[in-house]
């Protein structure tokens, strides 16, 4: 099954962090990642954050690249489970 992985939301309120800049991918297309494993790093103004894989699977498609600005809810990649 193919699963689209969004950037998880931190809260709907207007004062919540809304996204950041993709700093680095930890997994290449075609490689597999375990549930909870590091997927990519994202910078907010305050710090670097590691986004982890919500399920185990093979990364079939990256939808964002290093340097891209992303918002919560944006699809980061597609995993095949």
């Amino acid at each position, binding site marked *: 099954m193919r699963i689209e992985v969004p950037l*998880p939301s931190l*809260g709907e*309120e207007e004062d919540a962090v809304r996204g950041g*800049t993709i700093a680095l991918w930890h997994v290449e297309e075609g490689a597999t990642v375990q549930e909870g494993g590091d997927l990519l790093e*994202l910078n907010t103004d305050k*710090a670097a*954050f590691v986004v982890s894989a919500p399920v185990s699977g093979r990364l079939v498609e990256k939808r964002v690249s290093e*340097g891209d*600005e992303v918002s919560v809810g944006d699809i980061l990649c597609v995993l095949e489970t």
Partner: protein
Amino acid sequence: MSAPVKVFPAWIRRAWPSGAAFAEVKALLSGLELHTVCQSAHCPNHSECWGRRTATLMVLGNVCSRHCTYCAVHSGKPEALDQAEPDKVAEAVARLGLKHTVITSVTRDDLPDGGADHIGRCIEAIKERCPETTIEVLVQDFNGDRAAIARVLAAGAEVFSHNIETVERLHPRMRDRRFSYRGSLQVLKTARELAPERILKSALMLGCGETEADIVACLKDLLEHDCDAVSLGQYLQPTPKHHEVVSFLPPEEFQRYERIAYDLGFNFAVAGPFVRSSYRSEELLDAPFARARLSAAPSVARASSPAPQESAHEN
């Protein structure tokens, strides 16, 4: 789209919030329309703390009447008080099953008592509903108003905190002009006069341009004003509009300052890049001095009704 990517030191790295426990805390708090400093201040520990089912509740609304150059909380004209907030706070603490909680607030210069009575009612509501839960209350300076400080103390939170935030030399640049370094020290002194046994705590952000001499002088000032416990953490810039980070101190530097704080005479000190005044705040209460204080003033831990008299719960 490829702007140069900002590079943080390797140790300024956290997990992006996700997972079931985080989602549960998020749903519960937004259902009760409660604000947290975790969210409003864009705290980097958000994922870890909510994942451990702890959060720092920010009462009196999410708009602050003051404007400090490092803080992400919105400033402006605060809204009307939510009179149901004490009950909602107690409900959140009960439903999260918290053994320890931190209550803080925005500054409310628009309210005659600065919101002290409302904060006191929040503490009392928690104590009534969850008598075993220990509480740290982190307050603003109330413009030095002794009666306001007494009102908060009388509610019986085990730990009373007021953050000095930064060293004396940087205070005018970092804080709203209505705060003053000496005024903040005096808040701690006043709390000590009113509540001789209370655990008093303060916190300091590092990386704003202070020197070691500045830090040591500040720690000594806190001790001279009867502060028991201190936490030191890395300042992180919430948006490019806020005060810049002058330096990122490596974790070893924080450990060194933690030792310095103990050597100077603090009963409890904790320092680290991600240490915040509310981060793992419950560990303070496990310190031997804190246990001794709480058993010396058991009424503090069991305060259940509002105390009309100053320091009625002490001694």
